[in-house]
């Protein structure tokens, strides 16, 4: 049996009929067609599927889509587009923080959530904030540098 679902996805209304067992991840990728959110482990371990749900960083593979009824979801597509990158996206691009790129959407959202609550994080907070996001390529050094740069860019942008 399918149920109507409507939620705010990156500022637009996303609506469809979904089954109770459909995850928010599947809804975002297969119904809304936004494939920036990655399907990795589907078990809460990798953070590839991380999105912001009402501003909070969550693993979308562990949330039933119907549980997000009426809520606001931000995916990597909602941060910026290739012509208008968000400061966090620019910082990652400038730092060469991405290799295969699979983890990067989750990293960008984890960074966005971190800088929203802590504009000037130290390295320990940065490492803690991305500890639910696994990167199989980079060894994290450049990612941490990118997040430091992102904090600076956001800061400069406001002044």
């Amino acid at each position, binding site marked *: *049996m399918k*149920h109507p679902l409507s939620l705010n996805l990156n500022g637009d209304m996303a609506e469809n009929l979904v*089954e*109770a*067992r459909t*995850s928010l991840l599947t809804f975002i990728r297969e119904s809304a067609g936004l494939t920036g959110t990655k399907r990795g482990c*589907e*078990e*809460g*371990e990798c*953070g590839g599927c*991380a999105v912001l749900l009402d501003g*909070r*960083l*969550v*693993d979308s*593979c*562990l*949330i*039933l889509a*119907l*549980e997000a*009824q009426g809520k606001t979801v931000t995916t990597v597509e909602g941060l910026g587009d290739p012509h208008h990158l968000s400061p966090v996206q620019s910082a990652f691009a400038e730092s060469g923080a991405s290799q295969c790129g699979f983890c990067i959407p989750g990293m960008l959202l*984890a960074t966005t959530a971190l800088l929203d609550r802590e504009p000037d994080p130290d390295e320990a907070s940065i490492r*803690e*904030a991305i*500890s*639910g*996001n*696994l990167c199989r390529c980079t060894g994290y050094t450049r990612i941490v540098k990118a997040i430091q740069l992102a904090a600076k860019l956001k800061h400069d942008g406001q002044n």
Partner: protein
Amino acid sequence: MTYPMRPFELHRPADVAEAVALAGEYPGAQYLAGGTDLVVNLRRRIAEPDHVIALGAIEGLGEVTREGNALAIGARVTMAELAAHPEVMARLPMLAEAAGIVAGPTIRGMATLGGNLVLDTRCRYYNQSFFWRQANDFCLKKDGSVCPVAPRGSFCWAAFSADTPPVLLALDAVLELTGPKGGRKVPLRNFYGNDGRWSIGEADGGLLPGELILRVRIPLPQAPWHGVYEKVRVRGSIDYPLAGLAMMVRWKDETAREIAELRMALTALNPQPMMVPGTEVFSGRELDPDAVAELSRLAGRTGKPMRTTVSDPAYRRAMIATMVEKAAARLAPGLGPALLQQARWA
């Protein structure tokens, strides 16, 4: 390989009465809180309920309130909230500590206290995809008839692996429950049982069918006391405990390290979280290296790791003593160097 979940019907009751009525109407229904355990289990077809009752729309289960000499914590309070709550950090720092090292940050923002208390027991033959389990002829706990961990027995050794229950056992917390048959209060120490199939279920004193955890009431211990939580895991960033220990001490004389009362509880080593019995005899004694060695032996008699994780049980057993030493060194000022010296002589 991921199979789709078995189809189920999702209910989103607006209040506790409606939730409990639904649970009464649909036997076998499962509550869904943060979903960080249940959704994984649904996907692996370890959980196959026909009805799922989501608690997300219910108000009033997410509060931390001071009630006289106790803190009452709602079942939907998340690990992230517990770890950062000023009152919890000030009055029950060991609980904030344990909640703050559950999984990683994405999970902690979703994971609730209620779900943590009745987390399904874990085992390397059980927490696998349907495909994997099928290829392995399943196991006694789900869909099979033999337990590969102990093939000749008829017992399930799956380990109860949540981080906050040992702390709450040491603190002597009480659960406030409600269900289709009415409400009741159960001391956490009478709640769990010792078979991995139903250590949180009715057969052992745990939840009755359809019962819902509303709040956890924690009496604030008499000052001055200190408590810590030690956890061993594979990856410090995200993993379940391979072993966990809560230790708390009330001092008769803190500078002389003279104990008034000492409590220990273990997790992830047995099918249930357990108080370590026999610590009463330490009252009046100094917490010195000899006492620590005795406490390690005592804890070692309670924790019984089996081949339920990819880590060797011998390693987890050895870690019990290590956790006791680390906890004691954190609790007793100046004890750390004495322990190190003893280790060097040994």
